[in-house]
């Protein structure tokens, strides 16, 4: 399958003298769950921030294909256009909700651009004219759909900040999905979740993939990565050291070396290798 949704070419990001990402190239295929893994400090989040427009890369190209053939160069777009025009949505490692607003309001803010277009520069909507009412109704329906998918429908009118941690993570995903993305980027979605929540997250991510949205995720939890991803990219020191299916990655000597360090041939059952092997 050659339908590529995201293609990163020679991406380099320098912070002063530090090169966080060094000549990274990879591709994510449409309809796949692509995972980016690597040890702490490998540059995963930096790659994410470059893709989602929070950093401007020092060099390289990031191209998104909204439809097959309909491509857009991401690293030239202003920050907010990444979600608006390129239809790349993201979640954050440390949750960033609008905590004082209700769950439903969070999901409506996510549909801001669509709704704003229906307000006739705000004037018509203030006067109660135009097609704003219908647009808002549709937006609430979309929000309701994602609230049902994430199991938050009963908390819709509660303040987002009052939700338990796991629910806040799900809400962030629901909010990102309300922007109707082509590519959803998740920065450690399973961080801090208990095993049961983690399983529910896997199901949610698979459900999202089945709607046709491609996913790119950074994850430490090998249980999540190995079970659901179609394609895994391993980073170390800002460089790609492996790229392939979960099965290939699990048996890649470079990867095992990166996670465990060298000279551990005597101990094949070391903790992280153990996680890699046993999690599938």
């Amino acid at each position, binding site marked *: 399958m050659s339908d590529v949704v995201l293609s990163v070419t020679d991406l380099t990001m320098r912070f002063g003298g530090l090169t966080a990402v060094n000549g990274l190239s990879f591709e994510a295929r449409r309809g796949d769950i692509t995972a980016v893994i690597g040890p702490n400090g490998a540059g995963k989040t930096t790659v994410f921030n470059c893709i*989602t*427009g*929070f950093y401007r890369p020092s060099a390289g190209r990031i191209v998104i294909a909204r439809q097959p053939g309909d491509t857009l160069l991401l690293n030239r777009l202003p*920050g*907010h*256009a*990444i*979600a*608006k025009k390129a239809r790349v*949505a*993201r979640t*954050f490692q440390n949750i*960033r*909700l*609008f*905590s*004082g*607003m*209700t769950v*439903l*309001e*969070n999901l*409506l*803010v*996510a*549909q*801001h*651009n669509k*709704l*704003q277009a229906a*307000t006739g520069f*705000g004037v018509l*909507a*203030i006067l109660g004219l135009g097609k*704003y009412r219908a647009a*808002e109704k549709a937006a*609430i329906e979309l929000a*309701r759909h994602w*609230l049902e998918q994430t199991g938050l*429908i*009963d908390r*819709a*009118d509660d303040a987002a900040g009052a939700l338990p941690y796991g629910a806040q993570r799900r809400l962030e995903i629901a*909010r*990102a999905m309300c*922007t109707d993305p082509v590519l959803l980027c998740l920065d450690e979605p399973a961080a801090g979740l208990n095993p049961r929540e983690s399983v529910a997250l896997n199901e949610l991510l698979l459900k999202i993939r089945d709607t046709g949205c491609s996913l790119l995720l950074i994850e430490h939890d090998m249980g999540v990565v190995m079970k659901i991803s179609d394609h895994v990219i391993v980073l170390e020191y800002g460089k790609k050291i492996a790229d392939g299916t979960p099965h290939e990655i699990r048996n890649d000597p470079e990867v095992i070396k990166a996670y465990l360090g060298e000279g551990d041939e005597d101990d094949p059952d070391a903790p992280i290798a153990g996680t890699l092997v046993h999690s599938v």
Partner: protein
Amino acid sequence: MTAVAANLKDSAAVAFIALLLFGPFLGVQLGDGNAGNLTLSTRPALLGVAVALTFAARFLMLLWQGRRPPAVLTRLTAWVQQSGKFVAPALLIFAVALPLIPGVENAYIDLGVLIMTYVMLGWGLNIVVGLAGLLDLGYVAFYAVGAYSFALISQNFNLSFWECLPISGLLAACWGIFLGFPVLRLRGDYLAIVTLAFGEIIRLVITNWVALTGGPNGIDGIAHPTLFGLNFSMAGGPGTFAGFFNITPEPGQRITYLYYIILILALLTNWVTLRLRKQPLGRAWEALRENEIACRSLGINLRNTKLTAFAIGAMFAGFAGCFFSTREGFISPDSFTFIESATVLAIVVLGGAGSQLGIVLAAMVMIGVPAMLQSLQIYRMLIFGIALVVIMVVRPRGFISTRKPTVLLGKPKVVLT
């Protein structure tokens, strides 16, 4: 009883600070000597009483805090919140009816006009500070722009109040955008400093551009508003309000007319704000206040969102300034000092940022109370200051700090049987 010992120690520390503070103010007194020289006398007894009172007050306060929570005021505000549906219409009916109540003196209607002006300014600033979360310390600048726009346009181009009102608002909104651009990347304290400076710049320009604005002398003889071309002149001839309706001209007629103008302007501000809150734009402002980075990740254009908040907030200040100008008939830079910005900001913060009703209550306290206490002369500001401290201690997040959701799913809760 270690608690008592700790309280005593704390009270002693406070008393010591009081000694340092009161020492120069109460402890020593300059007097006139016989030979025209200055004498310096000390007043240890007075100083002692002040320090002892401070000690006692602090000790009692700590005891009181230990015993029970400050429930009285909390309960009162909770009641106001719960009956908010009832309080707001009651206040509105009172506001509409006030000039019609027989026996109400003009002075009270005039006070009503003043309070309402600040309510309008508070509601306008609430868009910027309460909804969008952009701390603006220079709000008076837009008030000044509105006032001077009206004064200058009406005198130079001979336009009436009603023709100038939208122009003033528009010009103020333009200045809002003009200020907005350089501060787009700033937040919190840094934003506050720049807006503070902007307010001062506007005032200094007005003061020093003598050829245009008359400088410190201000502008005199600004036109009063007319009602469909009828003015409120005391002469009472044809073409005046009194002459047209064949009644005796009274100052009360003009004051009542001004009262209803500002009431309508304030209600317009309120209505637009309430409508905008339920719009994507209003929600984007609130989202901006909550988390700017998340807003960007959702494709919200931060620049436009911030600029519209500045522009719409400034526009209402411009309307209010235009009204102020026509009401006073005279404006000078002295009316647009930093203390005005601070007062309006205090109204918004005391009322509970984001709450429309809270702002009304806060404006009544902030503007009404000092005016009512006029007879108490020098103790006025003391009582006022104490009142502010008490409110901030008891309700640190403002008088009304709950937020009403802009939209509800309204799904009936499923009852499990």
